[in-house]
């Protein structure tokens, strides 16, 4: 456990040194600029647009961090040959993989937390400056705690993407790993089409194959409740709980597969 936390802290420090937090500044500037510009461009609903923009920015910036740092977690150590002194230390290969993953999740958590605070700060300012009559027309309150439901699900989705990037990082080059991770991210958002394949195709084997792919590929569209939350529509804790449990189970499967691949890899 100590070795895992040691590796995780080092990955976090390395991410900070790689200037990942600068994305936060960019996010904050984007959000502040948008809140002013949108007021000039749209007729009402600026709070909706700021929420949409904020949640989308958290998802996009998080995706960039998850993919572009995730793909280098293992392959960079191999390229630099720093893997040899690392594995010579009393660190097992599973500890190395789990520690690397935990470190990147820590980086993501810090990023998402700061971006969430920035979003709530802009919404609080908007709520404070608008008249009560105007606020009454909003679908949901400006500073709405329900938005945390969407943010938690975005975070777990990013954890899944990180685990995918880590898996590909254990056996392929960074460019290929980025392409494969992004491909799975896109496929994961079309996953529900595979479930409903029987509505467009009659062939039984094709339907079974599609159903199998539906279960094997990550079901990322399930993590998207942004629209519901922004419009104040109900998102039950039961749905969130089962989706979180699905995400954690999928991450466990990916990490275990990464551990198996990495444990069998020969670095000679």
């Amino acid at each position, binding site marked *: 456990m100590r070795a895992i936390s040691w590796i995780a802290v080092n990955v976090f420090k390395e991410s900070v040194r790689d200037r990942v937090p600068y994305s936060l500044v960019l996010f904050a500037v984007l959000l502040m600029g948008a809140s002013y510009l949108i007021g000039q*461009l749209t007729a009402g*609903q600026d709070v909706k*647009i700021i929420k*949409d923009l904020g949640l989308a920015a958290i998802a996009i910036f998080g995706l960039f961090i998850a993919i572009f740092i995730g793909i280098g977690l293992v392959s960079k150590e191999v390229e630099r040959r720093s893997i040899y002194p690392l594995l010579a230390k009393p660190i097992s290969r599973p500890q190395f993989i789990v520690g690397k993953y935990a470190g990147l999740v820590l980086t993501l958590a810090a990023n998402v937390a700061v971006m969430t605070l920035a979003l709530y700060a802009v919404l609080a300012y908007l709520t404070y400056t608008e008249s009560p009559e105007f606020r009454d027309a909003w679908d949901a309150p400006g500073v709405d705690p329900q938005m945390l439901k969407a943010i938690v699900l975005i975070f777990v989705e990013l954890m899944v993407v990180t685990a995918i990037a880590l898996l590909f990082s254990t056996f392929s080059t960074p460019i290929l790993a980025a392409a494969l991770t992004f491909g799975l991210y896109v496929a994961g958002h079309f996953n529900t089409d595979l479930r409903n394949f029987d509505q467009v195709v009659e062939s039984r084997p094709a339907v079974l194959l599609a159903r199998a792919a539906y279960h094997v590929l990550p079901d990322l*569209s399930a993590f998207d409740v942004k629209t519901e939350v922004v419009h104040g529509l109900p998102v039950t804790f039961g749905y969130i709980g089962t989706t979180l449990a699905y995400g954690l189970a999928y991450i466990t499967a990916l990490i275990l597969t990464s551990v198996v691949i990495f444990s069998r890899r020969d670095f000679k």
Partner: protein
Amino acid sequence: MTRAGIAGALLLAAVSLGAAVALQAARDARYPREQALERAVMYVRSGPALRRIVLSFDALAADVYWIRALQHYGGDRRAAQSGRRYELLYPLLDITTSLDPYFTIAYRFGAIFLAEPYSGGAGRPDQAVALLRKGIAAQPTKWQYFHDIAFVHYWQLRDMHAAAKWFRMAAEQPGAPTGWSRLRLRC
């Protein structure tokens, strides 16, 4: 690189940027570009197709299309009489509401823009009703949409019976103001 070299490079960069800005301004003044033609292009007309393309960012894409619809309406309304066409208004609103089916303002304001008689609006009350019906399909108990359809029938189509029917339906929805039932009687 020496300190003088860095200062020289920065100065040269600033001069180059200034020259680029001056050239851009001179070119725009001499060869004005036709903006109306650029504005009238819609590359993707299918809401469901666009919804797939934008992955999980459909609400944000809806915001972009809503702002585009507003700019299109405002731009055409402010244009000279001959330039007022509003030909992209309904497709833009249709895509906006396909990307975000709960976008209340897009349905309600959009219906006003469509129903308003030409040249203040598109003069298409039929499209206004179609847009609001789409809203009802997404949120079947939203009394505001029933009420807005009633108003389109009342003001633009002058169909009092249809207006009365829609006011009655609006009054029957949960959360509707109690005064609507009296409005129906006056139609």
